């Protein structure tokens, strides 16, 4: 035991007092940090960055103050808060050190470094194997000792050679150079202090003094194990999600400081108007304020009609296309998958092979798939039209029918462009859905089918009255995930269509429009608002599916 360990073990109250003081100091520092962006101490921060920093440090300051009091009163809550705050502080300092030290950018070169040094790492591993071989010679102590010694030296040699070959010394020097500034030194000091505070509070004597119970330890261990995933989720998912929500109320172009515009983006998206038409072909400008609205579509009713206009025409066209796409793509990738799963679930020879075959499109790269389909769909030299032409010629020759070759312009005709995307999506998704249904089918107890057979049920009755109801959970999962996927269709359209919007905007979808607004038209704020509207649409559809599932499920009843 070190001197410090001995001291803290003998006098935990002294350690706790130190930790309580540290909490109070940290609380003060965090409070100053929270105020810093608003008193000009941190110039150059964007508004959202200032708000984020203030919220995080403000919360940390308040909790630390509470923890400081709790520790002095020997309440376990203080330990819990301290461990959380110090752990997050430690992680933050580590990330800052890695960033300032240039490790993140250096990782690009890691492949090269690792490639030239990995052999020596294998030597070190070989040393471990030699050492471990000693276990088999425990009955011959001399041999065992020799093996362990030899293994140890081989490991040391391999390790040192690995470090030398990987330029560890140069790396350390570079790291030290990079950290020789205010931020770097501050992060290193922070790392040490947070580490010591964490260690002091985690230890047994402190836990005992603060009345830690088994459930406390279990909870803390649980959070600790969860933390890598949770922090990743917060930083890379929840954080950007909140940020996009904030951006949706601004005119952000991703480059300059955004201005707050309130609900303006949402108002533009949802600003629509419906006007009666005196004649079906009346010009939009005669009935609409064309400085604001564009024509989205019109309904012709005899000698009159109704015109639907919107401030953002493309959003409504994208919504229409996306819903149409989902309406066809979901059934076309679910119903055939259900049929296929039933066929593949049979005990016929070669079924395992076909299961793999049908799954291949799901794992193939979408770029490759789209390019292959682009060739197949080509109206002049594509194979699909080639076979249609052959079929038409054969039919005409056999029956003298005089059928005209349709020469379908799959991707260049606004009537077929979206259908072309739907076909690809159904083909690609069907295999994955088949596997999900197969898993569901294999969970249905065989006794049910046996009982039905005894009762005289035919194949169709068994399928309709046993398979379909018992597959309800799988079907719900497949339908809801396929719907969500369909509402987010992007890659197939982006790569297959040229331009992606298709003829007369017939393949513009919500995610494509969102992408275009954010990354091509420099309107990140507006794109964020589109993303949140899309979220609401998908959320609403999923909610309806949940309610429908509850009503119809045999498991619920």
């Amino acid at each position: 035991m070190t001197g410090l360990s001995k001291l803290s073990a003998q006098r935990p109250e002294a350690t706790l007092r130190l930790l309580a003081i540290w909490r109070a100091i940290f609380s003060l520092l965090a409070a100053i940090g929270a105020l810093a962006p608003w008193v000009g101490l941190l110039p150059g921060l964007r508004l959202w960055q200032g708000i984020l920093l203030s919220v995080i440090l403000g919360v940390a300051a308040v909790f630390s103050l509470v923890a400081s009091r709790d520790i002095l009163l020997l309440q376990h809550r203080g330990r819990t808060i301290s461990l959380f705050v110090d752990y997050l502080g430690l992680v933050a300092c580590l990330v800052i050190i890695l960033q300032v030290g240039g490790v993140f950018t250096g990782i690009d070169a890691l492949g090269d470094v690792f490639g030239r040094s990995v052999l020596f790492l294998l030597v070190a591993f070989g040393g471990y194997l030699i050492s471990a071989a000693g276990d088999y010679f425990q009955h011959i102590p001399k041999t065992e000792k020799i093996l362990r010694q030899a293994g140890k030296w081989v490991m040391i040699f391999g390790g040192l050679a690995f470090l030398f070959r990987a330029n560890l010394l140069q790396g350390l020097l570079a790291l030290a150079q990079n950290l020789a500034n205010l931020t770097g030194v501050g992060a290193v000091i922070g790392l040490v202090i947070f580490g010591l505070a964490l260690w002091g509070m985690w230890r047994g004597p402190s836990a005992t003094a603060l009345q830690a119970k088994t459930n406390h330890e279990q909870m803390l261990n649980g959070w600790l194990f969860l933390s890598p995933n949770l922090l990743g989720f917060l930083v890379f998912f929840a954080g950007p999600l909140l940020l996009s929500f904030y951006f949706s109320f601004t005119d952000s172009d991703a480059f300059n400081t955004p201005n707050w515009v309130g609900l303006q983006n949402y108002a533009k998206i949802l600003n629509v108007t419906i006007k009666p038409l005196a004649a079906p072909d009346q010009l939009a400008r005669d009935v609409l304020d064309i400085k604001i609205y564009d024509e989205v579509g019109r309904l012709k009713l005899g000698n009159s009609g109704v015109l639907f206009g919107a401030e953002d025409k493309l959003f409504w066209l994208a919504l229409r296309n996306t819903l149409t796409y989902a309406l066809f793509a979901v059934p076309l990738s679910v119903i055939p998958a259900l049929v296929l799963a039933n066929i593949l679930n049979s005990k016929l020879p070669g079924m395992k092979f076909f299961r793999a075959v049908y799954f291949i499109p799901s794992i193939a790269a979408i770029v490759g798939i789209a390019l292959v389909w682009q060739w197949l769909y080509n109206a002049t030299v594509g194979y699909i039209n080639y076979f249609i032409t052959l079929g038409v010629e054969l039919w005409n020759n056999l029956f003298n029918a005089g059928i005209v070759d349709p020469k379908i312009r799959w991707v260049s005709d606004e009537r077929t462009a979206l259908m072309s995307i739907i076909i690809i999506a159904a083909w690609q998704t069907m295999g994955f859905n088949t596997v999900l249904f197969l898993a569901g089918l294999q969970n249905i107890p065989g006794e049910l089918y046996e009982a039905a057979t005894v009762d005289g049920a035919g194949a169709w009755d068994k399928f309709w009255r046993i398979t379909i109801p018992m597959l309800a959970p799988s079907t719900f999962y497949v339908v809801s995930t396929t719907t969500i996927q369909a509402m987010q269709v992007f890659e197939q359209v982006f790569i297959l269509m040229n331009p992606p919007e298709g003829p007369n905007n017939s393949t513009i979808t919500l995610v494509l429009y969102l992408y275009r607004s954010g990354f091509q038209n420099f309107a990140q704020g507006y794109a964020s608002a589109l993303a949140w509207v899309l979220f609401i649409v998908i959320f609403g559809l999923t909610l309806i599916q949940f309610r429908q599932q509850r009503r119809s499920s045999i498991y619920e009843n």
Partner: protein
Amino acid sequence: MNRKIWMLINLFVLVALALTACGPAATPTQEQAADVSIRWRTRPDNQEEINVYSNISKELDGQLQGITLTYEPGGTEGANYQDQLRTEVAAGTAPDVFWIPGTDIADFATRGLILNIADLAGKTEGFDVNAFYPGPMYHLTYNPANDKSGAASGALWGLPRDVSTFALYLNMDLINEAGAPDPRELAKQGKWDWNAFLDVAQKTRALGSEIYGYGASAWWGPYGVWLNASGGGFFSPDRASCALNTPESLAGLEFQRALYQDYDVATPYGEDPEPPFRAGKVAMFQNGRWATPGVRTVEFEWDVVELPKGPQGSQGNWLFWGAYVINAKTANPEAAWKLVQALTTAETQGKVAALGANIPSRVSQEAFDAFLTFTPPANNQAFLNGLADSPATEGPLWAGSWPEYDKIMGPAIQAVLTGGKSVDDFGATICDEANKVFNK
């Protein structure tokens, strides 16, 4: 014991890898330590172009004292060059020098994303903006603050990498088989106009249902030439409002619509015409100089001819261009400016042009003479004729948003050319919508 050793080994490897990660990047040699590091990027169309640019980067790295260059080819099938670049600019990780198309200059300049290098250029001995084609330089020296352009405008946003124009790539086997007149001969005689073009297209189309007389891709360049050639265009002369509904523009669009719908001589609009052309099924394929390396691999007899002259006696061709610009956030603007100059010297441009994909952006007889030697095609003069025919310069919209204008115009024109909308309907509504993208 074993568990502890395992943990130690794992810890050792993790820490060692993290520490060595910054080794190679952070420990340059003494000689390199004094160098300024510059990353640069351009959009290559194929691996050959990547190799040419990589070699140029290595050569310039040796020539530019105190500057270490890193070349990054940009853009893949799944990641559009411009979209990827914009994302990197927003994230602050874009290269010091990068290429952007001429249409993007205004967006990048007005948002402060690229450096105004007029001061640096002013201090550079021997530099002259007039050494390059005036069309691109008009936009590259346009100063939105004082609405002036030219050497004294106080603005310079970059230098043009190269230029290009459209020509018609000819499948001479099909043209000869159809007994159609040779377009190159007609051009020499001054008889290569829209009627002659239609005649050749119809005669070759008559060879079979799978043979087409003409093919062009679905973007603003190909359809724009028909509007330009009939005296119309996309914008008003001051480029501050829509001109798609003028009688001249509509006449050009009507002729093009007829090619697709009435005469049925063209590959379906929106379908990539390059595969059928390469398969020997298209007689005249409209494309820029950049298509030459790909066409060189076809197995039939081919050449190029300039675009046919329209009712106004002009081809209506475009002067396509893109420019090397400097990232506004570069830490080394002087070094970046040296690189931009080095990339646009006659020598460097000659090396790129030798590949056959483009034409040097410097106006010089030596450059023209050298370009004519980069065969096939035998009739390289067709591209130079396009340049000499007062082509409309591809350019940004300083008074509005080009990407938005393009996205309104493109689908509407596609609707006309695929038979979904009449030219009259197009003319009656297009500018109502398109004018919204201009600054009020």
